């Protein structure tokens, strides 16, 4: 194995681990102000919004319809109350169908 590559991987591993581990360990057992607590418990839903948009619409370069159809399938299945795995597999099947037709 190339030494330079090993150094690179070790460096990438270190700088990726630091932001993952610091808050969880430093904040353990600390009572934060109520506004900060609420702010932090809002993060998951805000992050999900940002992870979904605009990414879901851009999954196939140059074909916005592909993303729209996929997004529609995912939202429709989720709205209907399907569990996460069904939403995932159902969306894949719908897009396979889309590709077979177009």
């Amino acid at each position, binding site marked *: 194995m190339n030494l330079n590559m090993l150094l690179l991987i070790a460096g990438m591993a270190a700088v990726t681990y630091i*932001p993952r581990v610091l808050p*969880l*360990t430093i904040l353990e057992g600390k009572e934060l102000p109520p506004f900060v607590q*609420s702010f932090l418990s809002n993060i998951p839903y805000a992050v999900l919004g940002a992870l979904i948009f605009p990414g879901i619409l851009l999954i196939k370069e140059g074909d916005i319809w592909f993303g729209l159809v996929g997004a529609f399938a995912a939202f429709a299945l989720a709205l209907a109350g399907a569990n996460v795995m069904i939403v*995932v597999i159902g969306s894949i099947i719908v897009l396979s169908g889309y590709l077979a037709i177009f």
Partner: protein
Amino acid sequence: MQQIAADSVQSEFRRGIQAGMSIAVGYVPVALTFGLLAKTTGLSLWETILMSMLVFAGAAQYISLSLIASGIGIGVIIFNTFIVNIRHFLMSASLNEKMESDSMGIKALYAFGITDETFSVIATRNGKSSASFAFGVMLIAYGSWVVNTGAGHLIGASLPDFLQAAMSIALYAMFVGLLMPSLKKSAKVFYLALVAGSINSSLLLSGTMGTGWAIIVSTIISAAAVEAVISIRRKAGLQ
């Protein structure tokens, strides 16, 4: 008593594995392609697997490949990795509110497994989350990432074109599936996702910032602004 505790640890771990299954599926096309690209970039099989084992961060690993290919120095690549992954800082802080109290050692261990996907699954669970549940989610996601990275390098190909394209929806569909149950119950969740999604879209599509920063900025603004509006309304006696 001990027996009961051991049972609940086991079933929490199993529930974690189940909840992480959709991540494992979603990682397949991404990891296979990463393995393939790593091979064409000139990484050996073991270098590729080692990177996935130690870094476990899809976006940063992809970007590192294009930087390696362009011959940039490793200092720059490492710095860039740090920038792309700073968003985990926010997720780790949020997860700290969500998780049951645990020893530093256990928290330091599962902190390694935080990705956009594992965080989303663990943080949207009802009530507090246990370390056993987190380990379950992360282990199945990690296994899929590492194994499929190696497979992509070994086979030297990704999935058939149509399946690869169709499966690119998987992680997004999972995010939608995770968001929806809370969104149906709470207008606040709807606004949090809407505001962050809109800001993220305008930042990315206008080319103002790259993916890593755009997610951080849009998440912070949305989480703070929605909370501020709620507390102002509460003070004004509207709610």
